[in-house]
């Protein structure tokens, strides 16, 4: 093997091997293919977590490596989910409608089928016509294309507007947050064409696979999510390892200086922003069929901030850090809020973790930010005895050249 990006960064092959082992173990322990030690619902949680890891990798690329703190990537994630959800819902309703109309003495016309589907889907928002945005919902290939195109286009247009007017730093963060809020408020309207706050539901039922048990479908989605994460990780590792990676890290550390060197900074930022938006969209398209329901609350600004929190806790500026952060925080969060964590009895007051988990998360997040900006990923530096003198990241005196060779 020559000097490829895979060998230059030891972390990438290690990560891929770990992922492969995880997939193998989970498959062997799953209900349809193994011992059944892992329940279907936990299998779904694992599959969803892998999708969250993928969007965290995208977030790390845009924040940890390019220095753009985007508070809008969960909006792209949600949009991807909506795009696939439209086809899932349309096709499933079509099958149900076709079945119920099959018994009629006169076979239904295409128009009748479509209007029956529309009144099924939009009855809850008091409408019975398909809005324009559903024009491709009948076709899986077109809707799959939209999974990539819609978040990508939104990221492209928004990024172009923002970067060309040189909005940077916290301004950009607030602007992305405003974009997310605008999008979720828009989707909350009943006449947005996406069922308002009802969102899209029943997405776990894959049309045409109704004969298969959910456990099998969950396993397929788990495999799909793992594959997507692996490909996304390899892609991200490839991006950050070459010259391109050096330029975007340069932009993160001192944008003006990179610009003076003659690099088209806006182009680089726009590329990273758009590509990560697309990755987020794909992750969302894999996530929501496993979650079963999507509604505008999923796109609220807070979701994107949580994404940043995961990456920060995991350790930004290193791809495996983002994955660890997303997996760790979301799984621990599920554990605490699911009521499985034991209550702590203090005598005068019983700490119920359902109520106190968010406080613990908030406080530990603050502590991580102040005391351990490397996040959980920093532990690996301790283990490999390669202690850094300074931190990575856009801050004064951070580590730059060695990071590229990591």
């Amino acid at each position, binding site marked *: 093997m020559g000097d490829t990006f895979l060998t230059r960064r030891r972390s990438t092959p290690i990560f891929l091997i770990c992922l492969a082992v995880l997939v193998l173990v989970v498959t062997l322990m799953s209900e349809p293919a193994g011992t059944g030690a892992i329940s279907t619902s936990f299998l779904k949680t694992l599959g969803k977590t892998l999708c969250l890891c993928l969007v965290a990798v995208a977030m790390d690329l845009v924040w940890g490596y390019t220095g753009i703190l985007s508070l809008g990537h969960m909006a792209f994630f949600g949009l991807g989910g909506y795009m696939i959800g439209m086809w899932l819902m349309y096709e499933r309703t079509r099958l149900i409608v076709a079945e119920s109309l099959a018994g009629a003495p006169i*076979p239904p016309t295409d128009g009748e089928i479509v209007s029956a589907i529309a009144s099924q889907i939009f009855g809850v928002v008091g409408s019975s016509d398909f809005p324009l945005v559903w024009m491709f919902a009948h076709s899986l290939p077109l809707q799959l294309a939209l999974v990539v195109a819609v978040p990508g286009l939104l990221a492209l247009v928004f990024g172009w507007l923002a970067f060309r007017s040189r909005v940077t*730093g916290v*301004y950009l963060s607030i602007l992305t947050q*405003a*974009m997310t809020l605008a999008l979720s408020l828009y989707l909350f309207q009943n*006449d947005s064409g996406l069922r308002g706050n009802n969102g899209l539901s029943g997405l776990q039922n894959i049309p045409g696979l109704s004969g298969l048990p959910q456990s099998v479908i969950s396993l397929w989605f788990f495999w799909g999510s793992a594959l997507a994460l692996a490909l996304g990780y390899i892609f991200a590792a490839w991006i950050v390892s070459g010259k391109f990676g050096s330029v975007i890290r340069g932009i993160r550390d001192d944008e003006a200086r990179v610009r003076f060197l003659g690099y088209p900074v806006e182009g680089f930022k726009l590329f990273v922003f758009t590509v990560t938006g697309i990755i987020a969209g794909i992750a969302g398209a894999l996530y929501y069929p496993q979650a079963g329901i999507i509604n505008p609350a999923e796109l609220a600004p807070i979701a994107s901030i949580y994404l940043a929190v995961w990456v920060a806790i995991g350790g930004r500026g290193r791809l495996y850090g983002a994955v660890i952060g997303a997996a760790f925080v979301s799984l621990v969060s599920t554990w605490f809020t699911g009521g499985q964590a034991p209550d702590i009895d203090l005598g005068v007051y019983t700490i119920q973790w359902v*109520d106190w988990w968010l406080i613990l998360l908030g406080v530990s997040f603050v502590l991580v930010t*102040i005391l351990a900006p490397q996040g959980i990923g920093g532990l690996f530096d301790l283990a490999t005895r390669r202690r850094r003198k300074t931190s990575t990241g856009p801050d004064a005196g951070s580590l730059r050249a060695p990071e590229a060779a990591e």
Partner: protein
Amino acid sequence: MRWVQILAVLVVALMPPALTAQEGASLAPAEASADLDEIQALLQEHRELIEESSRRTIAPAIDALASSGLPAAREVLRNWQEKELWQRQSDGLFFFVREAEGDDMVHLIDIATGEVVGTVDDGDLDQLKPNSGIRGLIGGALVQFQLRDDDPAMRAEGLQAIERGPEEGHLGILRTMIQEESDATLAARAERLERLMTISFGESEDARIEAIASFRGDTGVDVRAALNPLLATRREVIAGEAPEQPEGNLARELRPGSEALSRMDAYAMLVSADLAPAPMDASAQKSALAANIVDGRVGGIPVAELNTVKARDRAYIALASAGTVAPAATEAEIDAALESHSFLEWYRTPSADITRAAETTLGSIELALASSQGADLLLDALSLASIYFLAAIGLAITFGVMGVINMAHGEFIMMGAYTGYVVQQFVPNYTISLVVALPLAFAVTFAAGVALERLVIRWLYHRPLETLLATFGISIALQQLAKNIFGTQARPLTAPSWLDGALSFNDIISISYIRVAIFVLALVFLAFILLVLNRTRLGLEVRAVTQNPRMAAAMGINTSRINMLTFGLGSGIAGIAGVAIGLFAQVTSELGQGYIVQSFMTVVVGGVGNIWGTLAGAVLIGFFQKGIEWLNPSNTLAAQTYMILFIILFIQVRPRGIVALKGRAAEA
């Protein structure tokens, strides 16, 4: 006692004439007696009607009483209305009564003199119980007495009665009253009411038109209620062209397929006037086809092929030509039928002059309404702007002056609101509790702000993005803490009663006192902040640190202390804003979250580091949001969406906000 009445009516109705005469004779002594006073005589004259007590026939009796001019007539009517007129069974005379000592004993009071004329068992009396219809008629008759009353309150009550249910007969009474009225307010009110009634009941067309014209630009709801019925229309379909000289008051001719009359509505009018056969809709066609399946075929077409509209039409035409089903109107026939008929809309008011006058007046009213609504909208926008200003000004100080994004700012607002709530639990007087809560909220959030600055933010001054995230961590922790302490349901923060109600200028322009108070509070804070920043030593040092922290430190300013105090000040103002916002919004743990993005937008649009910029940003955003809501009133969510889009585009034009800092500080 009701059955007694019914029985009495029955007896009178069934009684043979002779018997009635006999009874009349037995009453003769009473009627004959010379001392039967006028009012009693009048009552006796209409006794049968009164006893019959039917809404249809009672009118002459009431009119006679009302127009008799007798001094006691009013008292009789009022008592009658209130079911306090009694009739003696033995001779049919009417009395008022007053309770006497002893079981069921009452004093009889003579109507004319008001003197007690005897004490009897109430079993010997019948109480008159007019039904609600009759009581309404009596009320109408009483109005004229009320209008002549010496007491202005009574006259006002009379006017109100007319306003509620105007009748033609009231017009004369009202005109008499206007001439005699001494109270200017009442006279004006009566005069307006007279004009309003002239619109409907005026004697001549000219008088009515004049009355209609006199209301130009009057935004009162009552005017529109009087005018709109004049413009009521009905629709008619006739064969052929519309007449050149229409008989009646033609409003307009409708074209089928226009906005006012859709094509199918027009055809439905034809069908209901029996001028055309019913059209065939898809479901009727389908059931007709389903009913005629023969050997898996309909009209010769296999059932399986009937999955297109064209095939179904062909099958139906085949059935119709075979005579199995009634032929349906085809599209071409519908068009032809619509073409050969005219659709007319007539005013129900026959006079064209009146409808024209009403239209002119309504047009001018619309204009006045629009301008009033515009003024109201301006007030709303101003109030929204002051709310945004209050919510954002603390942020403008911390973000603008220190460059620190405080995501927990919204939670400081919430903290202030909850402080107000807690104070109200201990101080029951709302006014005093508000006076206590405002400084206390400032103190609490000032302390929280200082603690946040000391514990978290000072470690992150050179890492703005991480400050954002760390304060976000604080924000979720504080929100959850508030949820754990106060629960998820909304807590009331009640405004003192002098803040209840609204300041209204007319029917449309009004603004609640709470919003006025918030506007005043916003102005006070603007003045306060400007004073602190421009006239105090602290302000001088704050400005120095803003412009160049290192140079300021070199001049001996303790920048660390200034940062702490600035942050405390900004947070404290958020607390006071929280009390103000809590007065009109629900106090929940998510109270602040709703304002945080808007606050950031206000600061960013206004321009960082400048109080005037924040003011400009708040005004711009407040007015813009209200403007969008006005264009699309049903949808405030859309308004927010468009507003955020607008802000994103605005940043394109002015990336540093409306009031941009210049020089070195701009890059800091």
